[in-house]
């Protein structure tokens, strides 16, 4: 598809090249002029330990306004640096991360100025809670799209996984059975995606949207027919949290990373395995070859269709686990449309993260953090109306996608069915 390649490599305008720098500077100015100037007099406090923790760490208090000014200055400096000095790729990404961190910190300082201290541990835990389905969904998308199949059906995979996990766990009284069933349900949507996209050459964006509609309709229907009439199918049992012995005792890090449900640990494993497998193994090289140039891959004897089938179904299994998390991992009982757009945000995280597992992880954590903020900040600072705070993650995504990332390059054969010549 030469047209696609040409469209991607359309000449960058000067305007476009300076966009990131301008965005940096704008964010810096927001830090200074909005957060810094509008922050109430007083300190922003950050607690670093839970109330019942054995090791107490004193609350960190910083003067809100000066910190905002300082963080704004850092963002401005990075913007000027970006504008004047040609940076390497890694440096560019670090600069983006730095500006985002400055922005988020000054947001926190502004919101918390003169109020009760924010508990960093609880916020971090909440961020993971919000991020797990996004991370697993984005990883599922990564597996699919690296092999050249667009996966818009992440939403459907999450939803069907959530439904099946809840109903099976309730019916059999076994959480692990529910987890496996949820994963398989995601895999089933993956099978549909694979069959229609790879064998019947259906338009993959259309297919994804349709599968989402279909799963939403099915789960709504079955919820009405089975669950709402028979509460035994929706008991709301959940996994308890597992403390990793030793590691969970470490101050700060322990409660954040090593004291959670099994889903967080599954997520760790999935991220590492998929990142390593995709970029450090023969398996991954083949997958990427199929996603970039299927004809060449076929020529050297790689079975394009088999790899695509396998990856799409694997992706479905991973997303199914993310779906199971939505019910038996967090709230327990299933409600209609429980995934409520997580699949689409996971898709945005995948694209924002440039189709890499680690990039998607970073993006998903950012979205998760924004959603956690939307929950926490109205309780700390009642000046902010909740609906406006709820917008934050989405506005942040738009700014990030338009201002910082701009045109991204997907796997070259992404979305193209492969027909042997």
């Amino acid at each position, binding site marked *: 598809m*030469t*047209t*696609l390649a*040409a*469209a*991607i490599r*359309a000449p960058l305008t000067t*305007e*476009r090249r300076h*966009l990131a720098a301008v965005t940096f500077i704008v964010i810096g100015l927001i830090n200074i002029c909005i957060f810094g100037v509008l922050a109430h007099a007083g300190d922003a406090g950050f607690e670093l330990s839970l109330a019942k923790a054995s090791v107490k760490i004193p609350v960190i208090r910083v003067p809100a306004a000066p910190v905002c000014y300082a963080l704004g200055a850092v963002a401005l400096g990075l913007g000027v640096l970006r504008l004047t000095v040609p940076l390497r790729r890694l440096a560019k990404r670090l600069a983006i991360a730095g500006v985002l961190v400055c922005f988020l910190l000054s947001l926190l300082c502004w919101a918390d100025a003169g109020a009760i201290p924010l508990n960093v541990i609880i916020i971090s835990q909440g961020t993971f809670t919000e991020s797990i389905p996004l991370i697993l969904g984005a990883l599922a998308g990564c597996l699919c799209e690296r092999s050249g199949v*667009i996966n818009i059906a992440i939403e459907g995979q999450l939803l069907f996984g959530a439904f099946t996990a809840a109903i099976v766990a309730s019916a059999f009284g076994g959480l692990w059975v529910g987890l496996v069933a949820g994963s398989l349900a995601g895999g089933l949507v993956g099978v549909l995606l694979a069959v*229609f996209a790879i*064998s*019947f*050459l*259906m*338009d993959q*964006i*259309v*297919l994804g*949207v*349709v*599968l989402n*509609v*279909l799963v*939403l*309709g*099915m789960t*709504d*229907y079955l919820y*009405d*027919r089975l669950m709402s009439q028979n509460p035994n199918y929706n008991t709301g049992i959940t996994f308890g949290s597992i403390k990793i012995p030793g590691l969970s005792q470490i101050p700060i890090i322990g409660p954040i990373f090593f004291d959670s449900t099994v889903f967080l640990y599954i997520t760790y494993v999935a991220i590492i395995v998929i990142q390593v497998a995709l970029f450090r193994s023969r398996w991954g090289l083949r997958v990427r070859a199929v996603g970039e140039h299927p004809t060449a891959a076929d020529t050297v004897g790689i079975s394009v269709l088999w790899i695509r089938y396998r990856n799409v179904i694997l992706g479905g299994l991973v997303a199914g686990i993310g779906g199971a998390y939505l019910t038996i991992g967090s709230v327990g009982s299933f409600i209609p449309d429980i995934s409520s*757009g997580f699949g*689409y945000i996971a*898709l*945005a995280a995948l*694209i924002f993260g440039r189709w890499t597992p680690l990039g998607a992880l970073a993006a998903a954590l950012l979205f998760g953090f924004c959603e956690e903020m939307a929950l926490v900040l109205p309780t700390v600072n009642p000046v902010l*109306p909740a*609906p*406006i705070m*709820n*917008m934050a*993650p*989405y*506005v942040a*995504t*738009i700014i990030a*996608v*338009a*201002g910082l*990332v*701009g*045109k*991204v390059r*997907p796997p070259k054969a*992404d*979305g*193209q*069915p492969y*027909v042997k010549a």
Partner: protein
Amino acid sequence: MTETPATGPDPAPASTGSAAAQPAGPAEAGPAGAGPAEAGSAEPGKPAGSRARLTGAVIIQAVTQGSSAVITILAIFLALVVGGFLIVFSDPVVTKAWSTFFSYPVYALSQTWDSVSFAYSQMFEGAILNPSTVSAAFHGGSIAAIFYPLSSTCAQATPLILTGLSVAIAFRAGLFNIGAAGQWVGGAVVATWLGFGVSLPPGIHVIVCLIGAFVGGAVIGWFVGLLKARTGAHEVIVTIMLNYVMYDLLSYLLSHPTMLQQPHQTNEIAPFIANSANLGHVGGPPPQVGIGFLIAVAAALAVAWLLSRTTTGFQFRTVGASPSAARTAGINVERSWILVMLLAGGLAGLSAATVIQGTNTQLTFNSYGTYGPDGITVALLGRAKPIGVVLAGLLFGALHVGGTYVEAATLGQVPADIVQVLEGLIVLFVAAPALIRAVFRLRSTAGTGLEAVAKGWNG
């Protein structure tokens, strides 16, 4: 392969070719004014050949080879069959009957048939024609009652047609507008505000509100197009995110009395719009057509005219077929993106106007419903062609009405959600003509289906 670069530069012969083919082949009921990439239906020489044949032979050929209309009908049929399985499996009476299948096979089969046929016949009665009203009319009942189901189908179809057009016009320029829901909210907010906050004479008030709704949606759409053109931000992400932003904005506006909330209310609900802003209807009562429906049809005709008869429409289609070829040919691709998103947003805004000024007369937080997502399925089923969108919107409107009816008729035994499953299945099968051909053993030919509708991440 969805397209080849060769078709990009000269879409004109392809589209004029298929336009010429249309009168010759009545069996090609789906409007064949295809986009440039659907050149398969306009193979050179084929129109002349089919013109020579008898109409009957043409129809038989269309059926055996599976023209797009035939594929659509078969897809609907297949969807009803699969939906029937879902109805049966979740009906306890039927499953109990099947557990004794080997003792009483006839009973199991008859129970199955009863369950499915009852659900579908109720759906038909609710949405299209209820035979009992016809016989009642012969015995002195009201003739108007016969048309009641059709009137409600049209009313339900109206917003679906407009959001469907919104998605379809973006598809034709190669953009995937998932944001019809957000644009709908944009239009609804402006229409509501103008509807209750301004007092104008009746006719003018309606028009001002309609224009306001169009502008409200168009601004949201324009912003998406602008971001795509200026920064390369992918419209799929931006529209999804804007949907959530607009939902939250709506929630904010509807929870503050200084904004749009009805005074002395705790719910998220706006005041009723003034009577002078109400769209009303033609004819009636029951054999009536809402003005909104007429607006929807007029919008479809306008979009059809724009796409097939104007330079702008030609540019849209060329950009949709191949942005790089369009750029080479001197078309301002970025301008086309911005303009088409503006129009798409405006159409979604009009959809909101037909609801707020027509059927609901009041904006609540739940008003946006599923018009946005349904618009995508309607556009896909209508193959991104205006007339197809109208037909698909009518079908989905009928399904919605029928779904509500069947839920009431079966006392909740068959939930209205079955309709959503049916819609998904229909589009799934329509979009996979290869599957339909395999199931019904049709001969395979090129060039039907939705291959050219949506594009990959950089289409």
